Structures are given as structure tokens and as C-alpha cells.
């Protein structure tokens, strides 16, 4: 029986392959997601393990342990004296101090700073004498290590990209204006092929200390033990000597801690990509289900014959299951290896979207192989189960009776009821998941996932009822313009509503999801620009290059000194703990801020700002409500520099919850500067006397020495944010395109099988005078109709999901907006998909020789 199944597949190689592709792509996405993120993980691991390979113990400052929305402050530096203390400890062979920074920008020869796309831009101050070489994870590619206040070594990628080498000069900007250094060396990190978007600049320790405003301070002391002293023993001895104001860890602990932090980040990317793999597999399952259903129906006589010569139902079931198993396994193996290629493609996509991550040799983990093969095969099997069960219901008498009908199963008699119930349950699950407050995040996501899947399945089940009315609507142009071929095409589309429905359903899923993200993105864009327009009154806005990291306060001071500015108001920001919770603290210049930021007070007025003093604070209304605070209440603030101070709430304003530009609490600039060693600005808001566009150029020029800044008008800023949303949307579209492609293969399959099934009918049509052109047109029209039915189902579904999410996020003022242009594009894409899917089947139908087709049995 297995032989029957295998031979059957072997006899239909092309069709089997076409069917398998539906799963190949999903599995490739999955394996690609694993390969890419594993490779990134390994590269990061290598960075950290290399960094501490020959380090037995590391002394660092205490971490403040405060973080907010992914931002956290680096550990405070330690006094340089600790190094001498450590060197004195018994059992220490050698110890070296280093300083580092994550926001030191390298300046290209054209004056632009190098954009790392969110990746760190390191500055290292390291001891480069040979005896300290073991602590240095960097390897020189060219030149020598820097020595003294004017020399720097840079990383290989920057050297190559900018065509720089020893002897050239490069600008470096940390806290102050950019300064020029002479390049004396080019280095790389361990043996990594790429450190992604990250850059580094290496100095000797005193130069880095000066650059980073850390005179007399170190960020880490790395220690190697004498022979016979274990790392743990070394850690114990050093701890005893230096006390508890600093952290002492073994090198391994330090490396693990750092790579764990990064692992969380790659984990997010992994799940993000796996979600799209899941969607692709789900669509693939629809295609497999549909194809197998059709082939089972077409092989009714074959199954009946098997039954008459003694095959049991179980054997018939087995033969279809084996078929699905083989298709699934074949597809999974192909997909697994295709994933290796896809991983490269995904990385290219990320790089194109300015998310360049470190790379090393490709990691092809056992987990990737096992999970990809297992999931791909199981999904195919699950999709094949229903067709297999249908095959067992073929009665033996079908072997002798022309056109025997399969008995309807008990389930299919109630299909409409089941569909309605599924949709209702799905909508309830989604509403509950999105609108209820007290659910755990995990449960919420589970409910969402199940709800969306159930919704798609339910609508797909229901869609066989909708096919006939929908076909009449979308068939209108075909009827009008397609002549006889168009009319026949419409009839064909409606002939087996179940088949048309499940073919269209596969496309529906893709269309629904792109519609969903498209509509949400449009709402996001609108909410974003409204929030900015509501809050910002300034003519010009200065931010860092990426728009969100804080930049040195010196920038604001420099701007204030410029001639063309009328008023400069600095908005400081940093992470803090407010009422014992991670938060953002903002420092405002009370005397100027009201001219550049529009406070819409719910309690208080603009006067409050001028009199904030040393202990006054204002809160956005959502925070006040959340923490149950009112004017006159006291809040406790702990800065990342470990300074604590209590403030009194003086005013409450509408904080634009969708995009709050001010932090969880705002205090006066003086109070802020007292809490932080190195205060940084989130914005410098500038008013100019004349036309902002003209002034922008002169301000830009005035701030030239601070390359990591961006000077924009309010509209430019909004446009820039829009562009970033569009870029992310594009990434989502590209990833979702995969499922649209899969449904395209599903359409090709269904059409090809339908043409095969109607061979005799096509012969008859040709015999009574249908031309080849008309035949092709008939198949093409049918295909386009199926595609349009998919779009007609998918568009409203996507909009519905977007409404649901918008409702759920209403407390954040997320708006709902329909991107008409995008939706029209999706309809056009569907039509094109229909035309493309019809190419091969239509050609086949037109090529049939009339006589052969009529004699076909």
C-alpha cells in the first residue's frame, strides 16, 4: 500500500513538487530564522568570550540596575586607585584598566558621522603594552596600537568602507565637539567576519579618559591570576581588598552576563521571524489541504478499485497519509537547506533597513534541523488528514459507477454552523485578548494567536457560502468584457464553491495580514504626526542622528551661542527610578520651554514651570492616574548616578500618550543636572527670528563640530519619523509577501488540477469552436476571479483586525486611518497574482489536442 502511494507520487513528480513548494517556503523561512539568529548569537558570544578569554577576574562599577523601555545606564566608573589596589593583591599576576563608551561617533572625511543603525559605536581606552596583550580582544590588521593624545586605531570595516589607513586622519566625537586624530592602526574583533553596524575607536587609556570625561576613572579592571590561583579564589581575594562598592566577577561570569543580555535581543528577532514562518506554514497548510482534497476527489475510482480488490479503509487512509508524509518530508528537507540561502537574504534585508548585525561562520544547529523537519512534516500531515479521511469514505461501488459522489461526512453537513461558531469564538477570543485588562502577556499572545488562526479558518469555512455571490460581483468585468470565455470562467469559479473558497482563502490570509499592517501603520503615522504637532511649537528641533538617543548637553550650549537663534530650550532626559520603578526623567528649562512646547494643563498652568525650583515636578496625566498622584503629592527619584531626591508634584498636563516627548516626570534643568554626572539632552528646541528653513542651514553649520546631531524643522522631523515607519512597514510587507507567493502556488495547483479534470470538457468546447485564445482567456478569468475573491475576503478581514487593535490601544490615542492607495495596490496585486497563476494552466488547457481530449478517459 505504501508502494502504491510512493509510486503515485513518483508518477506525478511535477505536481508533487508544486504541492511541496507550499511547505518548502514556510520551512525555509523557519530554518532561515534559526540560522540567521544563531549565527548572530554566535558572533556576539564570540565577542564576549574573546573579550574575557584570558581574564580570570573583572572589576567593574556597580550597576544602578535601573532600566526603562530597554534603556539602561552603564555601570558607574570606578576610581583609578582600584587598579593599584588590585595589583597589590596576592595571586595577581597582571592587571590592566580600561575605559569604554558606546556612543562615540566616528566622523567620515565628508563631515558626516557614521550611522551605526542603533548598533553601539564603541570607544575603547586600552593598555597596549605587550604584557597586557592577553586582555585585548582586538587584533591588529595593519599598523600599530595608538600611543598618546593624538592617535587612534579604527576598525577594519570603517577603514575599508571609507578607504582609510595608517597616516590618514579621522574625526571622533564623544561628549564634546569632534576632534581629529591620526590613524596609526586598523584592528578587528577576534576573528569575526563582521561586527555588524558597530564601529570602534581605540585609544590609550589617558586619551580615552580625557575624551570621555573620565579622568582618574576606569570602567573595568581585568586581572589574570598567577599559576595555581583559581579564578574563584582570585575573585574572593580581590573582593576582600577592594570592598563592596565595586563588582568583582570571574571573566566567565562577566562574559555570560553580557552575552545573555544580547541573547534576549536576538531572541526577539528570532521570534519575530518565526512568526512569519508560522504564517507561511499556515498558508501552506491551506494549499496542501486544497491540493490533496482535489487529487483525492480525482482519484475516487482508484480508491474504489483498491477497496474492491481488498483494501481496508485503514489501508486507504494510510496511503494518503504516506503521501502527505512524503510530501511533507521532502518539502521540509528542501526548505531546511533553502533556509541557509534565505538567512543570507534576510540579513541583506536587515542591512538594507539599517539593522546590521555581527556575522560569523554560518551556524546550522541540530535544533534547526530537527525543528524544521518536524514542524514542516507535521503541518503537512495535519493538512492531509481531512483529505485522507475523505478518501476512506469512497465506496467500493465508485469503481464501477461513473461520477460517484462521495457521501458527505457528518461534519460537512454542519459546516456552516461550525464555521459561524468558529468565527464567533475567534472574535470573542480576540476581543477578550485585546480589550480585557487583567491577563498575563503570555496568555494574551496565546489568545491572540489562536483567535487569529480560528478567525482565518472560520472565514475560510464560511467562504464557500460567499463564493457564489462574490463571484457574481467580481465576475462582472469578465462577463462584460470576456464574452463567452468570461461567462464560462464565472461558471467554472462557482462550479465547486468549496474548492474556489479554499483556494481563495490561502490568498485571503496574506491579503488580510498586509491590509492589517498597512492600516495600522497608517494610523500610527497619523497619530505620530498629530502627537508631534500638538506638542512641539519650536521652529527647529535638534536631536541625535537616530532621533532618540540622548546627546551631549554641550550641543545645546553651542546652539545657544549661535547668532541666528532667538531662543534655545534644552530638554534633558535620562533613565531614573521614580517611585521605585524604572522611568524617564526629563529636565526642563522653565523660563523658555513654554515657547517651544505646548503644555495642555489638566491641573496647573505655564506659571508652574517658571517656579519649579529645586524640588518641583510636573507629570503627564496618564502617569498621574497610574500612580494615583495629584498636585501636592511627593515623588521619590533615584538617578542612575545613585543620587536620590524627593520632588513635589506642581502640575499635571496632557502627555500625548501615543508619543510622549517628555518623560515620566519632568523637573527643572538645575535639579536634573544635580542628579546626573553627565547630563544629556533629548532635544534642543530652537526658535529663530525668520523663516525656519533658512535658519536651519545656519544652525546646522553652527553645530558642524557635533556630527551626531540632526537639525530639522518640525515637518522634516515628522517626515523622518514617517519614513522610519514606512521602512518597518516595508520589512513587514516583504516578509508577508512570502505567504502571498505560497497562495499563488496554491492557485496554480488548483487551476492545473481543474484543467486536468475538465480535459474532456475542454475538448468539447474546442470542438464546438472555442479558439485557443478563448480557452486561455477562460482559465485566466477564472484565476483572476479566485484572486479577487481572496482580496474581497482579505481586505475587510484585515481592516476588522486593525479596528480591533486600534480599539485595544485607544488609551494610547492610536488613531484609525485607511490607506486607500495601499488597499487599491493590494487589489491590483491580487489581479496580477491571478494572471500570473493562470499562465501555466492556461497554456496547458490551450495546448490540448481536440481529439485526444475527447477520447480522454
Amino acid at each position, binding site marked *: *500500500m505504501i*508502494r*502504491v502511494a510512493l*509510486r*503515485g507520487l*513518483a*508518477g506525478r513528480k511535477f505536481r508533487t513538487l508544486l504541492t511541496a513548494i507550499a511547505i518548502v517556503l514556510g520551512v525555509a523561512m523557519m530554518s532561515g530564522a534559526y540560522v540567521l539568529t544563531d549565527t548572530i548569537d554566535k558572533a556576539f558570544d564570540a565577542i564576549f568570550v574573546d573579550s574575557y578569554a584570558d581574564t580570570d577576574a573583572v572589576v567593574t562599577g556597580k550597576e544602578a540596575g535601573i532600566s526603562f523601555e530597554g534603556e539602561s545606564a552603564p555601570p558607574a566608573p570606578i576610581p583609578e586607585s582600584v587598579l593599584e589596589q588590585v595589583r597589590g593583591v596576592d595571586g595577581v599576576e597582571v592587571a590592566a584598566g580600561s575605559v569604554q563608551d558606546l556612543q562615540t561617533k566616528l566622523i567620515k572625511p565628508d563631515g558626516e558621522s557614521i550611522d551605526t543603525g542603533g548598533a553601539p559605536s564603541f570607544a575603547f581606552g586600552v593598555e597596549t603594552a605587550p604584557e597586557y596583550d592577553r586582555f585585548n580582544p582586538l587584533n591588529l590588521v595593519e599598523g600599530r596600537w595608538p600611543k598618546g593624545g593624538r592617535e587612534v586605531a579604527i576598525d577594519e570595516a570603517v577603514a575599508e568602507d571609507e578607504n582609510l589607513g595608517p597616516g590618514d586622519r579621522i574625526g571622533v566625537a564623544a561628549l564634546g565637539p569632534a576632534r581629529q586624530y591620526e590613524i596609526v592602526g586598523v584592528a578587528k574583533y577576534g576573528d569575526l567576519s563582521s561586527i555588524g553596524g558597530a564601529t570602534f575607536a581605540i585609544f590609550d587609556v589617558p586619551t580615552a579618559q580625557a575624551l570621555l570625561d573620565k579622568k582618574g576613572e576606569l570602567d573595568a579592571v581585568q586581572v589574570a591570576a598567577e599559576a595555581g590561583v583559581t579564578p574563584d579564589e582570585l575573585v574572593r581575594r580581590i573582593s576582600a581588598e577592594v570592598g563592596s562598592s565595586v563588582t568583582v566577577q570571574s571573566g566567565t561570569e562577566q562574559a555570560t552576563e553580557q552575552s545573555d543580555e544580547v541573547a534576549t535581543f536576538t531572541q526577539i528577532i528570532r521570534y519575530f521571524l518565526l512568526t512569519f514562518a508560522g504564517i507561511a506554514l499556515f498558508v501552506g497548510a491551506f494549499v496542501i489541504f486544497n491540493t490533496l482534497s482535489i487529487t483525492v476527489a480525482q482519484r475516487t*475510482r*482508484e480508491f474504489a*478499485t*483498491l*477497496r*474492491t*480488490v*481488498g*483494501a*481496508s*479503509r485503514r*489501508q486507504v487512509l494510510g496511503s494518503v497519509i504516506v503521501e502527505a508524509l512524503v510530501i511533507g518530508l521532502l518539502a521540509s528537507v528542501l526548505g531546511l537547506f533553502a533556509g541557509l540561502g534565505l538567512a543570507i537574504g534576510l540579513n541583506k534585508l536587515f542591512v538594507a533597513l539599517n539593522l546590521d548585525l555581527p556575522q560569523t561562520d554560518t551556524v546550522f544547529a541540530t535544533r534547526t534541523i530537527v525543528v524544521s523537519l518536524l514542524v514542516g512534516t507535521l503541518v503537512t500531515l495535519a493538512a492531509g488528514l481531512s483529505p485522507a479521511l475523505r478518501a476512506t469514505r469512497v*465506496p*467500493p*461501488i465508485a*469503481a*464501477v459507477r461513473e461520477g460517484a459522489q462521495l457521501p458527505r461526512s457528518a461534519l460537512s453537513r454542519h459546516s456552516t454552523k461550525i464555521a459561524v461558531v468558529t468565527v464567533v469564538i475567534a472574535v470573542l477570543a480576540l476581543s477578550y485578548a485585546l480589550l480585557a485588562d487583567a491577563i498575563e502577556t503570555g496568555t494574551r499572545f496565546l489568545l491572540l494567536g489562536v483567535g487569529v488562526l480560528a478567525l482565518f479558518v472560520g472565514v475560510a469555512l464560511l467562504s464557500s457560502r460567499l463564493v457564489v455571490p462574490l463571484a457574481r460581483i467580481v465576475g462582472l468585468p469578465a462577463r462584460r468584457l470576456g464574452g463567452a470565455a468570461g461567462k464560462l470562467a464565472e461558471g467554472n469559479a462557482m462550479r465547486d464553491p468549496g474548492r474556489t473558497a479554499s483556494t481563495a482563502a490561502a490568498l485571503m490570509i496574506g491579503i488580510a495580514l498586509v491590509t492589517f499592517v498597512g492600516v495600522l501603520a497608517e494610523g500610527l503615522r497619523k497619530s505620530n504626526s498629530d502627537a508631534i504637532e500638538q506638542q512641539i511649537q519650536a521652529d527647529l528641533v535638534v536631536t541625535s542622528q537616530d532621533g532618540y538617543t540622548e546627546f551631549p548637553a554641550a550641543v545645546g550650549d553651542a546652539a545657544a551661542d549661535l547668532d541666528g537663534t532667538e531662543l534655545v530650550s534644552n530638554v534633558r532626559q535620562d533613565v531614573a527610578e521614580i517611585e521605585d520603578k524604572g522611568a524617564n526623567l526629563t529636565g526642563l528649562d522653565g523660563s523658555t520651554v513654554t515657547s517651544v512646547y505646548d503644555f495642555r494643563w489638566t491641573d496647573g498652568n505655564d506659571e508652574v514651570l517658571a517656579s519649579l525650583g529645586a524640588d518641583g515636578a510636573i507629570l503627564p496625566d496618564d502617569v498621574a492616574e497610574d500612580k494615583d498622584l495629584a498636585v501636592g503629592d511627593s515623588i521619590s527619584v533615584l538617578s542612575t548616578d545613585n543620587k536620590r531626591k524627593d520632588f513635589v508634584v506642581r502640575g499635571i498636563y496632557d502627555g500625548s500618550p501615543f508619543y510622549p516627548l517628555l518623560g515620566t516626570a519632568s523637573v527643572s534643568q538645575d535639579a536634573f543636572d544635580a542628579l546626573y554626572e553627565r547630563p544629556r539632552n533629548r532635544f534642543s528646541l530652537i526658535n529663530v527670528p525668520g523663516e525656519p528653513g533658512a535658519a536651519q542651514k545656519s544652525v546646522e553649520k553652527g553645530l558642524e563640530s557635533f556630527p551626531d546631531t540632526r537639525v530639522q524643522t518640525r515637518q522634516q522631523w515628522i517626515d523622518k519619523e514617517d519614513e522610519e515607519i514606512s521602512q518597518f512597514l516595508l520589512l513587514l510587507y516583504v516578509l508577508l509577501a512570502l505567504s502571498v507567493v505560497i497562495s499563488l502556488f496554491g492557485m496554480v495547483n488548483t487551476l492545473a488540477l481543474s484543467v486536468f479534470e475538465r480535459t474532456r470538457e475542454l475538448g468539447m468546447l474546442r470542438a464546438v469552436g472555442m479558439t485557443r485564445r478563448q480557452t486561455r482567456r477562460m482559465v485566466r478569468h477564472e484565476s483572476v476571479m479566485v484572486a479577487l475573491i481572496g482580496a474581497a475576503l482579505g481586505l475587510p478581514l484585515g481592516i476588522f483586525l486593525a479596528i480591533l487593535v486600534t480599539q485595544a490601544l485607544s488609551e494610547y490615542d492610536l488613531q484609525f486611518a485607511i490607506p486607500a492607495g495601499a488597499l487599491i495596490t493590494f487589489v491590483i496585486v491580487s489581479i496580477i497574482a491571478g494572471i500570473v497563476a493562470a499562465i501555466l494552466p492556461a497554456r496547458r488547457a490551450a495546448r490540448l489536442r481536440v481529439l485526444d481530449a475527447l477520447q480522454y*478517459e
Partner: protein
Amino acid sequence: MADVVNLPERDGAAPVDSVVEAHGLSRVYGEGDAAVHALRGVTLGVERAKLTAVMGPSGSGKSTLMHLLAALDQPTEGHVSIAGNRLDDLNDTQITKLRRTHIGFIFQFFNLLPMLTAEENIDLPLTLAGEKPEAAFFDDLLDKVGLQDRRKHRPSELSGGQQQRVAIARALVSRPSVVFADEPTGNLDSRTGGEILDLLRGSVQDYGQTLVMVTHDARAAATADRILFIADGVIVKELHDADEHQVLAAVEEITLR
């Protein structure tokens, strides 16, 4: 209709040694006004090691009778036994087992599995039952149907006659109690049809195979030991060892009735 009732009782009453027995078979398709009475109470026995032909014009009920006798369909009334097993007592699994040991089929359109070779097609009933063919018998069978040199060919590489030979071998390979042939020559030219009939006749003579053949071809019916004529759902006439002329005369008699 009334004429039919007036005819003498012509039911093929159970012979002494019958492999298949049917009692009071009737079969109604559809319900109410649309109801079609395909069979109206047929009782018969199929004799062991004989070739029984069932003849009748289109719509006479001969196909329905065969479907009921061969356990492909259930009668509205009455019951069938094959080799002593009452079919109405059996569930699907038991009927499957019964098919493996007691029933063989030969179809008008051959119904071979296109992906299997001739040999594998012939083997199929045994393979499904988890058995192996007896080598000597299998060889003899291939000789008999003249397919020794076509063993590895796929159905698409065989002529219609050759395909039907494969089907005959497949029906005989498990030495079933009874083989049902449904218009076995219906899709073949007359010369090839003749060869197939010889083969079927031979299987009765050489192997003592019991065979029931449904046909509307007088020449095919004339090869039978016993011919049952069906019209309007009842058996109206029975002939033994008739030649083609007698068969044609009988057909004419029934048609003119």
C-alpha cells in the same frame, strides 16, 4: 408491467451447490415520486465452477443485481450470502476481509492502478492482504493470460486487451470463491473481446473458478453455462448452454414483450 407478473416463476431458484445466494432482493433508488425500483425481488443461486451470465437491456437492473451480489451495494430488501456468509451481518472490516478471500472483480474499464506494473497490479489483492503469491500458480496464471513478457510494463504501455488480461489475472490470483465480471468486453473490439471471453471460459474449465458475468453482448452470454435474463428488475428467463442464436432469440422475445 402486468405482463411481467403473469410470466411463470422464472427465478433462478438456488441450485444444490451455490457459492452466492440471493433471496428476495429489491433495490429502490431515491424516495417518493422520484423513487426508481431497479430491482423488484430477485432470488437466485450462483453455481460453483460455472460461468453464469446475467443479460438484459440497459436499465433492466442487471448492473444493480451484480452490485448487490458483489457486496458493492446494500439491497433495500432481501439478503445475499457469499460462501455461506450473510452480507447483512457483516461490518465494513468483515466485508473487506470477505473481498480479499472470496471475491474477484473484472471491470469494463479495467481499473488498473496506473503507477504499478502489470505484475504489481496482479499481486495487489495479495499484497493488501499481507500475503505472497504462490510462485508456481502465479507463473501459470501469467502464462495463461499471456503476459509473461509484459510483467514490468505499466498499464499505459499495454493495449486494451492486455490491460483486461492483467485485470483477469488480478481477479484470479487470490483464487476467490467467485469472480464478478462487469461487461468485460464492453470496451474492447470484437476480436480482442473474443480472446478475453476464451480466457474467462478457460478459467472456469481449468481452475474450476465460479464466475458471474454481466453483459448485453449475446456472443459473450453464449459462452456461459447458464444465462439469466433480466427485465424491469426481475429475472424473466433462464437458458442453459445456449448458443448465440438462442440467446438472440431470447433477447428478442424479452424486448418485444
